[in-house]
């Protein structure tokens, strides 16, 4: 008997549950269709921005984060001495004026009246505390960028001096990075870094509300922000790893802006009424690293030239990437300080000449080499590698294609186990050519490409300490020209990044892939 009651009770429960769910649904659908009839297009009727990105933050410590996903949060929570405007120019953020006293000393005057979210004033002491933390604690991920800073001296409440170890042309670049996010000294000393991570405080336009790991970070407007009034009441950064789910949320209006839309989802986003695909440039350049170690087949400059001539970069971009890339002949794309416009949106392709070169090099009958590529690390990476293998095959190079899972791949790369060719995408976290071109210095290339050019090495060292902006750019250009000729790397293309955006908002992608909430507006 008891069982019968149980069964009928359960049945009733299901019926009620389903009824409740479908009831809800009908209302929603109705509301949706009504909205469309009236306006004909989507509109945003609240001031709550929801962004979904492909992975969650892993820390609330701005100085221990090197990821773009993290910086999208930190940039809106914290202020730094400098920031980048949408054109990637470095402009003052907390700094009122700056002065270069001598080659190694910089004096900064801070804006007065900036307050942290707990109401305390942001002073030179906080700046000193924050910079010294990242300069000295080598367990922090941002630490490697700050090793050239020597000391920070407070002059008065709103004035301080930063001393570098030798001339540092990239000081402003570094002071605009997330490692330079200014932390509230008193608060951190009071609650400790652990306490800070639970309730992070900055001075930026948005305040921290809550973080549910692998779900979302919620922020709300800072009414007392010293700059322009913040645009949004709340901003939610959701983490949605699965690409099709992210697109699903955009299509249903659950989120306003999604990052990293894969090529197979472009049509869904583009064809849907009320959403569009927005494509932006990134600093990431896909390239083949050529091993130039003696005894390797790719040590022969003619072979490397032949490889470059055999590959049709434009065809890769047009076919596999459906236009989501720009062919390049340098690792420093346009927009990054020190780039060479002659090597941007440029490529060389001449399979006949490639065959001749191989003939001259004594490989007329063809030869075999290994190309290692990740699969699933960058958009369409496996397909690009397959296409390259075919292109090389056409000039008589028999490619042994090795496609690896992302983790295995990066291990092979970082252990310098790369064989003749390895395909990788390298970004530039500093937006300065020095960041990319260090790869061609002898120390850095050792074991990986084994590129060894004393002249380039010397030139790079000079440029790294050169405070003369124009001369420095010329030095960088010269390095890039030589590299394009000597080919320790065979450049493929600059990757574009694709966002799915609700038509109700206005969003312009940035080269650094950051999202400044107040640069996003309601249409």
């Amino acid at each position, binding site marked *: 008997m008891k069982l019968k009651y149980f069964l009928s009770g359960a049945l009733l429960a299901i019926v009620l549950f389903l009824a409740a769910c479908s009831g809800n649904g009908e209302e929603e*659908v109705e509301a949706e269709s009504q909205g469309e009839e009236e306006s004909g297009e989507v509109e945003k009727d609240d001031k709550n921005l929801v962004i979904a990105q492909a992975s969650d933050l892993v820390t609330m410590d701005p100085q221990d984060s090197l990821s773009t996903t993290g910086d999208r949060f930190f940039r809106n929570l914290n202020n730094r001495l400098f920031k980048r405007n949408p054109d990637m120019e470095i402009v003052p953020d907390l700094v009122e004026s700056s002065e270069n006293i001598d080659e190694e000393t910089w004096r900064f005057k801070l804006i007065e009246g900036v307050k942290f979210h707990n109401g305390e004033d942001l002073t030179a002491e906080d700046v000193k505390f924050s910079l010294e933390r990242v300069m000295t604690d080598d367990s922090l991920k941002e630490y490697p960028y700050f090793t050239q800073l020597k000391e920070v001296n407070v002059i008065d409440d709103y004035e301080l001096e930063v001393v570098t170890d030798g001339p540092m042309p990239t000081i402003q670049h570094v002071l605009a990075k997330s490692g330079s996010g200014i932390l509230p000294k008193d608060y951190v000393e009071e609650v400790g870094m652990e306490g800070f991570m639970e309730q992070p405080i900055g001075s930026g336009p948005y305040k921290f509300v809550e973080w*549910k790991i692998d779900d979302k970070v919620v922020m709300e407007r800072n009414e007392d922000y010293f700059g322009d009034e913040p645009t949004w009441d709340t901003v939610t950064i959701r983490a949605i*790893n699965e690409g099709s789910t992210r697109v699903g949320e955009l299509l249903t209006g659950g989120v306003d802006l999604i990052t990293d839309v894969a090529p197979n989802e472009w049509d869904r986003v583009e064809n849907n009424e009320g959403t569009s695909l927005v494509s932006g440039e990134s600093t990431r350049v896909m390239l083949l690293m050529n091993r130039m170690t003696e005894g390797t087949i790719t040590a022969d400059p003619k072979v490397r030239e032949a490889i470059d001539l055999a590959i049709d970069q434009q065809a890769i971009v047009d076919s596999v990437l459906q236009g989501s890339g720009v062919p390049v002949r340098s690792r420093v794309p346009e927009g990054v300080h020190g780039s060479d416009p002659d090597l941007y949106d440029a490529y060389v392709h001449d399979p006949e000449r490639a065959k001749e070169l191989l003939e001259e090099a004594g490989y007329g009958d063809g030869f075999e080499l290994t190309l290692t590529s990740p699969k699933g690390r960058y958009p369409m990476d496996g397909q690009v590698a397959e296409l390259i293998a075919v292109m090389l095959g056409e000039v008589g190079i028999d490619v042994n294609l090795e496609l690896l899972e992302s983790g295995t791949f990066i291990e092979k790369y970082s252990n310098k186990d790369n064989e003749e060719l390895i395909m990788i995408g390298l970004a530039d976290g500093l937006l300065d050519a020095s960041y990319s071109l260090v790869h061609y210095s002898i120390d850095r290339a050792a074991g990986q490409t084994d590129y060894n050019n004393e002249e380039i090495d010397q030139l790079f060292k000079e440029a790294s300490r050169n405070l003369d902006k124009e001369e420095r750019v010329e030095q960088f250009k010269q390095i890039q020209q030589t590299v394009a000729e000597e080919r320790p790397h065979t450049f493929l293309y600059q990757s574009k990044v694709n966002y799915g955006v609700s038509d109700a908002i206005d969003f312009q992608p940035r080269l650094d892939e950051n999202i400044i909430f107040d640069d996003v507006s309601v249409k």
Partner: protein
Amino acid sequence: MKKYITKRLLEIIPVLFIITFVVFVLMYHAGDPVAMMLPDEASQEDRENMREALGLNDPFIVQYGNFLKDISTGNFGESIRYNTQALPLVIERLPASFELAGVAMLVAILISIPLGIWSANKRNTVTDLFITGGSVLGKAMPNFWLGIMLILILAVNVQIFPVSGRGTLVHLVLPAITLGTSIAAEMTRLVRSSMLDTLGQDYIRTASSKGVPYFKVVVSHAFRNTLIPVITITTLQLSIVVSGSIITESVFQWPGLGLLLVQAVNARDMAVVQAAVFIIAILVIVVNLITDLIYVLIDPRIKYS
């Protein structure tokens, strides 16, 4: 009885020991977490510093020894991804996973038991064919595919349910159906065959011939005796719940243990993987123990000594 339970509880220790060893060896050989933590552009020196700081340069036996010493005090080490203790990270995720697994299991039971009984009673009819055929289909649909399809149909095309995330009861529906379907498919077949066994027994025929109504025969005589195998089956499904929740949670961005585990594996975050596997192992063992104890309550013939 007390002795039996104590014995079973003590058995957990060697099992856990073996599990920690297997997991440690697998993760040790799975690769270098440092490569994942730093961007592609990082230099060899940066990597080396980080490896040293994390104690990854110690020999295998030292690392394993340190690991055992630590976990005996409940310290699974720090997650290299989150820089916090691994065990609390895992435990924080349990409510979300329990919620999903519980509702999915409920969905599975509510679908499979009536269908299993029904198809056993209609053996070799069209209804039976549909139900068994349907369960094959349910089993054959991969979890991630079903999840994506449900999102597409019931969340995007017809906007009834939210696409992803956790919050209200409505958020639970699609993930629970996704996870529940494959369990229900398997259970339906097992309930059916177990029911068929019971229906062939003498006492069922006796009951029928005595003139007891058929519905009553099935529900109160046959079904009660089918319960033991059904409970066994239900617990056996636990492994499907665990593996299924990893996929389901990823598709629906359900912030549970499965999602944490899959991300930890991808990032080679050993401490979190170990803590998660450890907790899952304990859960499976405990549920099995509870099942054995439930037998006693249902079937007075079973006694442990």
